[in-house]
């Protein structure tokens, strides 16, 4: 038994040990040295979460107080919903648009991505700020501020758009695995099952970590871009000198770039996941950094996609690119099998990330409009509505409409509609009262 152990345990709980009291008078919040931490206990404590502080003239060392990490570690700890939401925007459809832009117009459209980065940063940051300041999701606020009509309109549009997008993400998964010769009919259901299991049975922290690690696949694009040996001067010219053409295809792709970079599910997910993470307005600063880092990272990856295809497909004249898989296939003869494989890995990761985020964002939105409990942390019992929606969306089935059979039930209560309504109301009241009385044993403390 070490001396230090005796030191602490032999001391009266309300009296400080001698080594602590000698430092009385210090007024700061000095972190403990590692020697001091080890001296507290007979076994090494690996977590050095304690600081020395002076409380009313007594210098005491207290556990729990976190020292803020610095440098790269601090940045990594900050990353979360902002990076996930922005990266999810680079989905299969997005990759196809960026590849198409690079293949058809070379580096000419990179400037659009720089401008749209600023717009996306503003929108995403605004959603993050709303989430932290109010503790509520985007649709939740729309419902309260603009009423049920606009909220339903918004959620219907989101539901339809996201339904189509989810399908496209799994098409992306299928196309990506086919590049490697794997059967898509095996992988797509498996991917859907794994993502479903993850959201249903994991905690938010775990889901966030997995989503964050999925964003690493985007590094495939800068590698593919460098392997394509782009002309840096042309890249710089494309990035900083805007080019406008009257060509309808050019304008179509330009609008497509804007549309695919700023998509509603990114805002929905950003705000709702920030709320679920429990970010309060007093700790918003770190989330802002996360948001900006996420937006810049995601759009930088998009620019690399444009560069990769511009340096290869545009130069070689293979300009008919409709899907991300087309781009990957076209890359092989020009930039080699490794570039194709990297593009394929990126497509797979991006599709999986978006395939995971999209149903979740949709379920968040619908739950918020109808006031149902929501949260990845909640199980089926406590957030049945959210999980049902998530499952339904993932299974690409339309959820069954709520069957309203009240009219038939109440028709027996009276002849006139007014009387029926009144009788129905009274009946419901009585039923509620009876339920309360019958349930009295379990609610004996409630006295409602």
């Amino acid at each position, binding site marked *: *038994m070490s001396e230090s*152990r005796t030191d*602490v*345990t*032999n*001391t009266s*709980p*309300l009296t400080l040990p001698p080594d602590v009291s000698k430092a009385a008078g210090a007024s700061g*919040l000095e972190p403990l040295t590692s020697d001091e*931490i080890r001296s*507290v*206990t*007979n*076994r090494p*404590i690996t*977590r050095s*979460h*304690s*600081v020395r*502080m002076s*409380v*009313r003239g*007594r210098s*005491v*060392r*207290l*556990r*729990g*107080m976190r020292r803020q990490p610095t440098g790269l570690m601090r940045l990594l700890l900050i990353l979360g919903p902002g990076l996930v939401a922005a990266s999810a925007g680079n989905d299969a459809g997005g990759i196809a648009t960026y590849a198409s832009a690079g293949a058809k117009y070379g580096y000419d459209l990179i400037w659009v991505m720089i401008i749209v980065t600023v717009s996306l940063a503003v929108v995403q940051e605004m959603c993050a700020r709303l989430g932290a300041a*109010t*503790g*509520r999701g985007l649709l*939740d606020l729309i419902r309260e501020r603009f*009423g*049920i*009509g606009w909220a*339903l309109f918004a959620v219907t549009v989101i539901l339809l758009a996201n339904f189509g997008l989810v399908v496209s993400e799994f098409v992306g998964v299928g196309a990506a695995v086919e590049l490697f010769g794997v059967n898509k009919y095996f992988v797509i259901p498996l991917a859907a099952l794994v993502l479903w299991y993850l959201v249903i049975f994991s*905690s938010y922290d775990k889901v966030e970590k997995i989503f964050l690690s999925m964003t690493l696949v985007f590094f495939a694009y800068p590698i593919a871009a460098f392997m394509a040996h782009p002309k840096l001067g042309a890249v710089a010219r494309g990035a900083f000198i805007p080019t406008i053409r009257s060509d309808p295809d050019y304008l179509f792709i330009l609008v497509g770039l804007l549309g695919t970079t700023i998509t509603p599910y990114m805002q929905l997910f950003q705000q709702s996941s920030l*709320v679920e993470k*429990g970010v*309060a307005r007093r700790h918003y600063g770190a989330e802002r950094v996360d948001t900006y880092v996420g937006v810049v990272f995601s759009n930088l990856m998009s620019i690399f996609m444009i560069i990769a295809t511009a340096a290869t497909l545009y130069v070689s004249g293979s300009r008919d690119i409709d899907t991300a898989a087309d781009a990957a296939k076209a890359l092989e003869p020009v930039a080699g099998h490794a570039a194709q494989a990297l593009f394929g890995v990126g497509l797979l990761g991006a599709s999986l990330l978006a395939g995971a985020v999209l149903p979740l964002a949709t379920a968040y939105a619908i739950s918020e409009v*109808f*006031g149902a*409990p929501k949260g990845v*942390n909640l199980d089926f019992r406590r957030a049945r509505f959210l999980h049902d929606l998530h499952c339904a969306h993932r299974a690409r089935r339309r959820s069954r409409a709520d069957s*309203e059979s*009240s009219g038939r039930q109440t028709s027996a209560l009276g002849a006139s*509609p*007014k009387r029926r*309504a*009144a009788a*129905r*109301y009274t009946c*419901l*009241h009585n039923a*509620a009262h009876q339920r*309360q009385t019958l349930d009295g044993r379990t609610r004996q*403390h*409630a006295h*409602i």
Partner: protein
Amino acid sequence: MTSSSGRIFALSLLRRFHLVDAQNRRARLFDLKIAQQEDADNSALKTTQSATSEDEFDHPPVTHILFHDAEKKLRALEWKEVESVERKAKEIRVRDIEAGVVTNPESLAKDVLLERDVLDAMILDLENRRATRANDLLLKEIDGQLRLEAVDTGFGAIIRRLTRGKYMGLRGAQHISDWKHVEFLRGDAADAHAGAGYNRRIARLPPGEIATLSNLLPYLHAAELLTLLPDPLAADTLEAMSPERQLQIFEELDEAQGLQLLTLMAPDNAADLIGRLQPQNAKRFLERLPQPQRDRLIELLRYPETTVGGIMTNDVAFLPENITVAEARARLREVFQSSDFVYLIYVVADTESRRLRGVVSLRQLVVSDDNCALKQIMDPYVSTLHALSSANEAAYRVISSHLAAMPVVGDDRRLLGVVTVDAAVAQVAPATWSAQAPRVFT
């Protein structure tokens, strides 16, 4: 007003009515203002179990009709000016539309307007223990007065609103919550301090249920809810929340209330909460706490989180061994006023050294003879934990022992505190479950 009683109006339909006066001047109804429960005395009454079931504010009356006049100015007309409500004609007959007083919208900020504040708002349905949306409001005509009777939370209410009552009229009102069982929150703790317009029936629920309900609310609403509660109940409710939620809400409370709650919380919970604050805030709270609480918390905070000391509570009842059962009972009357864990009483050699000798259950102390010596009825074979042992290992020992708590001692068997089974379960439970782990003994 001469119309009949008992009719029910849905707000979604009522807001399409027009005001019509004797001179046939018309104005579109804009909103309805309801009476608010003003004083704290009344609120306190409602939290007691002897409160009458039919309170004036169980179903608050509509006091004013708001409308825009021909010059687009907002006017408030008192309900007593209303002569009748004509459902078929969709009219509210009033004596003189000009009697409406021109009102500044800012002056209505503190009032409760049904459409602006309640419709579509997140509400707590206390009867069904859920947080939900007010999809529609049902008003009942009683003695010429329109009263807010219930909230319709069903999908039918949404259909009714979208179809302007064509489908899912009042027949669609399936999910009705009586207003007296509804807690309506504004999302601002400062409003709760002002005290107006709250039902406060939430205070009749046990703290665990309040915490579970508050988890369904945005954190600002949850902070407001906590402010509505009496301080001891608020402290218990805060204890029942997950650590992250505790911190989020605690930081929204004003400092005086935060300090009060820290004083009332069990020391282990309060120490955990302080340990998660920013060091500067922790220091400020510790300095302002009363001396006994401060000393207890500092003592607990000295142990690392991964040790038994990090999960124990040091607010326990203990008695010297050389007294009789009668004396023990007399002393406990005083000790129990402040002790947090009272189900097992620890017997020590003397109160100075606090060297652990044995343990007595509350039941033994009640059924034993008055003149019996305490050391005769105590169990001298007590399993103990060391304050610097691993918290996880100790937690499994406490759970497998099937005891309410296990005492924590130093090397010289000095009693330092106890690890309750609640704390043990919370320690080893998975992260998503630990917040729901029961807290019965502390």
